[in-house]
């Protein structure tokens, strides 16, 4: 799972690999990431993306998809 901005800083890296069972959702992947990164424990509502498009937490992910989690955006 790709991480950006404060999440990346908290994790100390740009991406994290986690193991999830087949049929897991984006939200479940994020749960696993939070288990590994204590500084992210409080982050219950990240923005989530699947294959470079915003996705909801209940979307089922599959092998080979590019998934990402990040805080509210602040570009411009």
């Amino acid at each position, binding site marked *: 799972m*790709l991480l*950006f*901005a*404060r999440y*990346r*800083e908290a994790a100390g890296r740009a991406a994290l690999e986690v193991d999830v069972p087949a049929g897991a959702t984006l939200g479940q992947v994020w749960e696993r990431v939070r288990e590994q990164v204590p500084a992210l424990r409080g982050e219950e509502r990240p*923005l989530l*993306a699947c294959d*470079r*498009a915003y996705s909801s937490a209940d979307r089922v992910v599959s092998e080979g998809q590019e998934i*990402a989690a*990040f*805080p*509210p*955006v*602040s*570009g*411009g």
Partner: protein
Amino acid sequence: MSGLYRIEDGPIDPGEAIGAVGGPDRGAIATFTGTARDHHGGRRVVALEYQAYAPMAEEVLRAIGAEVAERFGTPHVAILHRIGRLAIGEASVVVAVAAAHRREALAGCAYAIERLKAMAPIWKREHYEDGAAWIEGCTDAGG
């Protein structure tokens, strides 16, 4: 049809965006340039830093261009966003919208920058004299 959507790790130029959208059948080009400001919320800012999820951000910018085309009837849109570290005064974002007439160009440009701030996966980090902080969420106070 013009369309230029780029996340750039280096200086961006309003002139490039204006040149990309102009053309003989258009009478109006509206642009918005966001620049690194030396203060925020009463605090002195010494530099800005932007990080982007670049491939997704470029898709989002392209989608914003398509929204402008649909809502304002003109496909001539350019959006450039800089990432990395910026000195105060440097441009962080440039939006240019050209149209046959001024109202569509002005409204399309204002719409595009609002959408960019709400949707593009890009984050700003402010550097102060004594530290730095990620900014989260687009605020009314922002440039």
